[in-house]
């Protein structure tokens, strides 16, 4: 069986900031287990000496000139905001200080 437990999925949902009901957690645990089992074979096929590819084409050093471009007005910035005040985005209280 899969190595993914319900507690794992609960933790992942927390990391991903998705609230889940018990029923959703149960379903996700079993579905994820099946998927993870099916993709596991990549570990065996990937030899230790094989380099990883993060970018499909080998471009390097793509830089921008340090020249100022367009900006939004505060009104434009906030046009789609669910909530705003004083030209700023408004969010509910933050409990956890970084």
């Amino acid at each position: 069986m899969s190595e993914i437990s319900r507690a794992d999925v609960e933790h992942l949902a927390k990391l991903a900031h998705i609230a889940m009901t018990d029923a959703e957690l149960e379903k996700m645990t079993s579905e994820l287990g099946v998927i993870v089992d099916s993709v596991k074979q990549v570990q065996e096929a990937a030899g230790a000496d094989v380099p990883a590819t993060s970018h499909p084409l080998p471009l390097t050093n793509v830089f921008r000139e340090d020249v100022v471009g367009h900006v939004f007005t505060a009104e434009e910035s906030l046009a789609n905001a669910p909530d705003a005040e004083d030209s700023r985005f408004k969010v509910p209280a933050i409990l956890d200080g970084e």
Partner: protein
Amino acid sequence: MTETLTEAQPLSFEEALERYEPVMGFEVHVELNTATKMFSSAPNAFGDEPNTNVNEVCLGLPGTLPVVNGKAVESAIRLGLALNCQIAPYCRFARKQYFYPDTPKNWQTSQYDEPIAFDGHLDVELDDGEIFRVEIERAHMEEDAGKLTHAGTSGRIQGAEYSLVDYNRSGVPLIEIVTKPITGAGERAPEIARAYVSAIRDIVKALDISDARMERGNVRCDANVSLMPKGSSRFGTRSETKNVNSMRAVEHAVHYEIRRHAGILAAGGSIVQETRHWQETTRTTSSGRPKSDADDYRYFPEPDLVPVTVTEEWVAALRAELPEPPAERRRRLRQSWGYTDAEFRDVIAAGLLDAIEETVEQGAAPAVARKWWMGEISRLANARDTEPAELGVSPATIVELNGLIEQGRINDKIARQVLEHHVDGEGSPAEIVAARGLEVVSDDGALTAAVEKAMAENPDVVEKVAAGKLKAIGALIGPVMKETRGQADAGKVREIVLQKLGIEG
């Protein structure tokens, strides 16, 4: 499980150091002074209306992509070189993922296991001239977050009803400099902490890659402190005091954390690995949040940015243009100018090293340059509530003013007046002297008449001089000055007096 003691009365600093050896580590964030942001062409500017220095990239809108600011990369390489680091021939950006409302994509684009600069060191100079070497682990490029304002009764995050977000700072280029653990500092740990941050500030200013204004958060320091019992080499649990934003505060924070840790350890307790916040008013730190497994940042190489490769030629070209390291420069200037240690320290504290150096380069004697900048210019600046360097007096003006004195065209007192008129915008010293008719009176007729009048009114003084007490001439100079409204040349006055009395000068 029994309760573990995690709080206790701090020990005195002396007692703490008798029993424990401090270990420090610093993460210093430097905001670059590029025109645009790290990954977008929106302006990198401070103090504007909220959410107006942003475009679709800074707000993390759907579909947007980052493009690296080439100048920021160059700044990072130059800083790496100034910190004696190796420069990575190949490196990538990575996404550091965590949800926070000041982070528009809910990840910070940073570098993870491939920093652009690594394995360096910085020699910092302490107050008594001793040099302490700080080993640098890495310097990497990343972006700043937006700014949160907490609304509600306290104005702080705790107890706030809601928060407001301004993304103007979102995406401002940062370089994070991480030290290796600093051991062997002993009682000088707080002083080393301050000197290290000060040295970083000097370097980024000398490189002109940052405005380096700590009060604006251009340079921010996270200080890690842990203790190990004397004789042990096993590091203890560390605390991380975040965003200590003045050099004085860095010194005090390290001082306090050493005492706090020692108090807990001495009482048999254990240190919680956590972030702490510096409280300027009480000069203490307070508990932030514990490090937890929630800190799983899920780093992976940023697929939207291609790797950066740095050739040896590029490094060599940037190395060739590096300015002299600030510490070396100070040593050199102190020696060549011949100031005393106290004089030199005052010059540095006043922030006038550059001004004096330039004045000397333009031909003034080091003592003269110091006299003007530390004296009259500083006085004027103080009176006008500004910095000497921002008064608008150029080194060339000082050289010109001093030339007028040396030519005997004005005296010191007049020169000070001329300087003030110059600051008030009346033109160059020569122009002011001409316009205001301030040139010393050297035409013999007027001057001789003034001298004769002074001699006639002060027969006792004349007697003393005639008897050979030449120093007494000084008493005649005052009245002559009064008569000529200060424009007499004191040497000339003396010459005429002696001549009248038939004494050989």
